[in-house]
């Protein structure tokens, strides 16, 4: 699953979406696209081989098809979103992304008129925090970091006990 190619419909994540074609690489960077708008922009940026550079910078309107009534806080609505297609020297590249639970679960690319070319999409996975088992330790420690204690709360805290033990 290639989740994490979030930029194309515009979270401000800034992940770079690469479309590799046989004769060159086109970088799509939609970091500037606005989030949450019904029609979002995908901006095709520079960074290409001479062959692909012919089609350099252009904008295309993306059409949002289905949309969840309550978008998650990521700013991404669930559904499948297809860009209108960017005209390149070798054909028209169209990118679709599928959003599930506010995350991009799938991204695909196709190229109309690109005879003999293949389109592949690569993108770095969005970083996530690792879930682990909540530990309950009684380890040897110098001090404790915890949610703000008032002076009163301190007296009943582990930090207070540690301070008393060292005093």
């Amino acid at each position, binding site marked *: 699953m290639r989740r994490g190619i979030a930029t194309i419909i515009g979270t401000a994540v800034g992940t770079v979406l690469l479309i590799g074609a046989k004769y060159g690489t086109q970088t799509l960077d939609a970091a500037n696209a606005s989030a949450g708008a019904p029609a979002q922009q995908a901006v095709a940026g520079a960074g290409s081989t001479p062959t692909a550079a012919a089609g350099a910078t252009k904008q295309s309107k993306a059409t949002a098809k289905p949309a969840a009534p309550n978008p998650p*806080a990521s700013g991404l609505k669930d559904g499948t979103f297809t860009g209108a297609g960017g005209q390149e020297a070798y054909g028209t590249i169209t990118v679709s992304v599928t959003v599930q639970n506010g995350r991009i679960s799938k991204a695909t690319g196709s190229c109309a008129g690109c005879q003999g070319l293949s389109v592949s999409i690569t993108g770095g996975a969005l970083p996530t*925090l690792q879930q682990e088992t909540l530990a309950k*330790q009684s380890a040897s420690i110098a*001090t404790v970091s915890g949610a703000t204690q008032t002076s009163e709360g301190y007296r009943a805290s582990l930090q207070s006990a540690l301070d008393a033990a060292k005093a």
Partner: protein
Amino acid sequence: MSPAGAGSPGGTGVVAGASGLRRVEFIMGTAISLQLADALPAATVERLAEQTFAWLREVDERFSTYKVDSEVNRLDRGELTAERGSPDLRKVLDACADLWRATDGYFDAHATGRLDPSGYVKGWAVQVASDRLMAAGATNHWINAGGDVRLRGGPAPGMPWRIGIAHPWEKDKVAWVLAGTDLAIATSGTYERGFHVVDPHTGEAVSALCSVTVVGPDLGTADAYATAVVAMGTPGLDWLARLATRTGYESAVITEDGRAFSSAGLPVAS
């Protein structure tokens, strides 16, 4: 919350000598614990401790919202402009503005409807105190202000400090043990009784993230990030993951329903 800086300094447990010094004072409405571990002359250690607490009391006088004539209150009442304020005041205001932007508005020094930079000031003050101790040659110490810790060096040559992250529901246990020789560790959360966090964008109470710890180089920044993420709720998990990638501030989170999360670079003790 008790009024910040209530009461006179209540130093308890002063142990000076080759093994260093441990002291606790009640400032900024909380307990501030100091450990100095350098083998310095007792008089030097005592002087450094006094200077450290004097600075923290000074910050309380100047920045507390509970002190009528603090710079922050004079600014809030319009009796002082930021331009005519002290360099420290301007520094704090600039940092709060930067952090407001960096956290998509979730760290908000005006969240209560008035200027209240306390969420940054405590960590900043401790960071400055630790920096000053380093400059004075006390390179092995930690300061813990109400659960926000800045540490340098370790308890003995070649040994890092070991710091527990409080377990939200087991008062005498810790959920993680971190180790390091140069860390700022700030924890915010909803598990302290009577502590409520409100999403500044909606005004609604948030409680999904019970404990948020942020670890990095600067304590004021770490504290502000931790506070902001509690207000973000669950989406704060992804925000923290990106933060670790972008800036190296690592994190550990416990959710209301008892799940634990950490970033890959969290300096967990071996």
